[in-house]
């Protein structure tokens, strides 16, 4: 029974960690973009205040059960995905359930949230939401392909499909996969900004065109749950990349350094970019990223 | 002003005078020509100006309420892009039950002006299409741009007024009342005294 207690405590701690780190990263992002634009910018803890404020809103409005459930699907996806990702290589608390999932499973569970979100956005009846969903799903088809190619290349090269297995291989070989299979890393890296939906790939929620798209009817506690989920999910994605390509992390400081370094890439790209149109974004993903994906597959297979 | 400069203007006037029965016509100044016509002559004059004289640009259309004469004066302003001349075609219709022909088949943008005039003055245009409600929403008073519409009374009746504005005097008078107050230093250089 003690094992289960530890597991639950570990799961809670992991969630809390992901939330905190994700929130601070989002705060840093705002700060960095502000500095790039020669502004002071909000304090780094600003996103905590935003979430708290939204949570303390006295009313919230929904258009039906699917909208009520949409943030729930999102956060369920984020937290469950977190449960199946090894946050630290050999921590007691942070292993969670990662022994019972693998990469394909992670790919699919990551879609669970956006699909629910899309259903909720659809129920609001706001045309902007539906347009945003249509764009978002189209963009997803774009970036998933190179990203999946990179992952399949890793799986074929190292003959394992589990994240833990890939981590073990990296610690056995003593090298990171970004060096041992660089082509896959490049493909995955090029696909990454699409996953984060920062500029130039912020076509889903484009505030100036779509009035923030799918989330345009969500406010109060719904929006705060979504922001929470978003920050957890950012951490999840970064951790997954670190686990796959950068050899994981054996303590929290290493994890924070690696994820932050990785996080800077979409953030800095986004800070100086305008917005793509949807078809431009997909064409981008089906250009060089796809080429590197193919190259990685061929490199892995032969 | 030599005759030479007004050559184009004079040529236009001559043409129009020859072809149409104008009530009045004059050259206001260089680049400004004014003709006054009967309502039924409006379409021929405008068509002639557009097709034959090169006044292809429909610049504006406006309406003046001559309540003393019991008439509306509608002004069509045309523009000749090469000769750079404005042609003012003016016509007068009775305020009550007057109507003008619709000219949006000549220039499509005239439709917008006509709908605005219809709404703001209550002047009828024969055969004008489009929704009755254009700029105003749910307006059930007399058309607001007519001079018999008492704006101030309407405003006083419908809207609230913040105290301090009740006299509605010119701001300068208010300032005048305060001349004995000490002005701050930075304001002194803008002072009229």
């Amino acid at each position, binding site marked *: 029974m003690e094992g289960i207690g530890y597991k639950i405590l570990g799961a809670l701690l992991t969630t809390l960690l992901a939330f905190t780190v994700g929130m601070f990263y989002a705060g840093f992002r705002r700060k960095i973009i502000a500095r790039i634009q020669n502004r002071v910018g909000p304090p780094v803890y600003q996103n905590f205040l935003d979430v708290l404020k939204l949570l303390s809103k006295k009313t919230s409005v929904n258009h039906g059960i699917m909208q009520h459930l949409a943030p729930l699907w999102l956060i369920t996806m984020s937290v469950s995905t977190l449960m199946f990702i090894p946050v630290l290589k050999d921590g007691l608390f942070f292993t969670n359930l990662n022994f019972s999932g693998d990469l394909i499973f992670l790919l699919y569970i990551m879609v669970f949230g956006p699909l629910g979100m899309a259903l909720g956005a659809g129920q609001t009846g706001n045309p902007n939401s539906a347009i945003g969903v249509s764009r978002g799903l189209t963009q997803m088809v774009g970036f998933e392909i190179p990203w999946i190619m990179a992952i399949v290349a890793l799986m074929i090269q190292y003959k394992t499909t589990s994240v833990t297995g890939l981590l073990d291989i990296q610690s056995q070989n003593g090298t990171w996969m970004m060096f041992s299979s660089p082509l896959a890393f490049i493909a995955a890296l090029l696909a990454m900004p699409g996953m984060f939906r920062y500029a130039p790939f912020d076509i889903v929620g484009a505030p100036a065109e779509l009035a923030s798209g799918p989330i*345009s009817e969500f406010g109060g506690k719904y929006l705060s749950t979504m922001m929470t989920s978003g920050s957890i999910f950012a951490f999840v994605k970064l951790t997954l990349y670190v686990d796959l390509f950068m050899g994981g992390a054996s303590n929290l400081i290493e994890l924070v350094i690696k994820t932050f370094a990785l996080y800077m890439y979409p953030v800095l790209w986004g800070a100086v970019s305008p917005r793509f149109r949807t078809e431009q974004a997909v064409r981008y993903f089906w250009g060089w990223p796809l080429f590197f994906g193919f190259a990685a597959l061929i490199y892995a297979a032969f | 002003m030599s005759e030479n400069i007004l050559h184009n203007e004079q040529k236009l006037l001559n043409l129009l005078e020859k072809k149409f029965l104008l009530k009045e016509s004059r050259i206001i100044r260089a680049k400004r020509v004014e003709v006054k016509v009967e309502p039924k002559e409006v379409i021929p004059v405008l068509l002639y100006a557009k097709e034959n004289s090169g006044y292809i640009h429909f610049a504006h259309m406006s309406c003046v309420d001559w309540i003393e004469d019991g008439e509306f004066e509608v002004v069509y302003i045309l523009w000749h892009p090469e000769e750079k001349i404005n042609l003012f075609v003016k016509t007068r219709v009775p305020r009550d039950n007057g109507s003008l022909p619709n000219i949006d088949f000549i220039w499509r943008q005239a439709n917008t002006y006509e709908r605005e005039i219809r709404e703001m003055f209550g002047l009828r245009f024969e055969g004008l299409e489009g929704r009755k409600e254009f700029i105003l929403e749910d307006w059930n008073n007399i058309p607001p741009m007519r001079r018999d519409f008492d704006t101030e009374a309407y405003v006083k009746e419908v809207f609230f007024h913040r105290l301090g504005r009740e006299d509605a005097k010119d701001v300068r008078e208010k300032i005048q009342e305060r001349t004995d107050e000490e002005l701050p230093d930075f304001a002194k250089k803008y002072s009229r005294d």
Partner: protein
Amino acid sequence: MSSLVILILIIAGFALLSYFGHSINKTAGNIAVFAAAVLIPLYWFTRVDFSETVSFTISGFQMELGYNMYGKLFSLIVMILSPLALIYALGYMKDSKRTGTFYFSFLFSILGMTGILMSRDFISLFIFWEIMTWSSYLLVIFLGKDVEKTGIRYMVFSALGAYAMFMAIVIIHRNTGSMMLNDYFNAFGNFSTGTKFLTGILLMFGFALKSAVMPVHVWAPGAYSNTPMAYTSVFSGALSKMGVYGLGFVVINLFAHANLHFAGTILAWLGAVTAVLATFSAIFQDDAKKLLAYSSIAQLGYIVTGIGIGTELSIFAGLYLAVLHAAFKGVLFMAAGAVERQAGSTDMTEVTGLIRKMPLTFFASLVAIIALAGVPPLGGFVGKWMLYESLINNGNFLMVIMIFLSSTAAFLYSYKFLFGLFLGQEEPEFENVKEASPLMTIPMLLLSVFLMITGSFPGIVFKYIAEGMTDLGFHDVNWQMSVLTNAWGDSVNLQHVTLSIGVVFVVFLIFLTWKGYKKTYYVSTKDISSSGEVIKPEDNMTYSTDFYKPFERVLHPILKRKIEKYYDEFGEGIGALFDFMRRIYTGNGQTYAFYVIVFLVILLVFSKNIFGY
């Protein structure tokens, strides 16, 4: 008498009973149908002896009926889906005319499928195959819509398939002197290379046609969407699986045993291409029925890919997907039918916002769509996972990418289906739409419960698949109740998945619902933030026309033209190619049968001259 013969007689009896019942009185007919829906599976589950074989000889041809475990697996699909569809049909066909013919054909197609799955020889297989084809043809033209195009096309393609099969059968008979399936499989290794290919490819053509694989799928979208929806769930769910059944034993028994893997690989590639192209077509459909029809083709593509690859895990995945596809596509076609019946249309640009009017239908479709999309924790994920892992283990990386592309793009049409019919603004036009009758919703809900259970306990299906695979030569297939394992030993524990998702879901559900419970307001879908503009009830703000325009623009430079057009023209081309056949085929069954017999005679007489045996 043997239980197998009794089963067939029972089904035939019920078919006649419901036909005559309906010609007397609708109620009597409905009772007969309901009895059929209850008694046939009851008899099958309790009384049928699966080890029994019946053999008899008709004019020199030996025929044999008997179940093997592989056939039993597919019978399970038929015996579970068809009764539910029958019960659904009671609600769906309540106000229509000629119901007698409908139920007669329906039950006869069940008879055909049951017969196919218990045939141990080619003659009875062929007979039952034709019974199935005819009865389904009658249902395709039942509504009288678009008979010229879809009906004739279905007939022509079915006839082609039948010819191909028949030719194969004749050649096999020439070579082995026996009509038994097993004799053929055993003798296959000794055939000459030409015969191997000829028989194999002809059989594969016949079966692939029913499972709508890429070059010969043209009949499917029209036929699926023109049939009454009550039958389409069976048509797409079970009847197309007969093709998969055939492909399964052809590919595995022949090619795997005779080391002709590349033929299977070609089949797998065809499946993958089918999946991608059909998915792209499905995305741009505006009619929900057409969308589902294309989606069926795509899903059958996955199944064919799995079977074509021919490894243990991939066949397992293919068969599992076949079972699951029957369930979720059954639900979806039923839901589309329910919407069609209640709201009058399935055009997704017209129908919007039925979620509050038809919550049960929505729930069932939601579950089915999640299963279709392969998102955990529902059953569809299991099949997708096994398929991917088998492809990756096998090193077929290009095929993995194609399948991935197809199933990622499948999210687009999955969402479009739900959004188009159930979400969006609620219109006064559909104010009075009511939930479908319990006769229609209960089958849907039962199937969706099945889908939910398979998400955490897929073992209940694995059991039958593992049994069935022993007949295909895979002994000791490993399966566990809720753990998936691939060839490299990586695994997914589904109970952990379901548990963690469930716990997180419930925790946050409580948090979100309880937090400020009294302050959460419901507002109508007309109350949206639209720059302060007040939306009138009759204004429809739903964005449903050209829903995936961005995606269309993306694909434009790749395909240079609209995909529907491409498909249409492809279909037109095929149609024109067989235009002369329309003159030969009058479109009724008798001439068709006559031609088949003539063809049979010609083949038997001249086969030596033609093939040189």
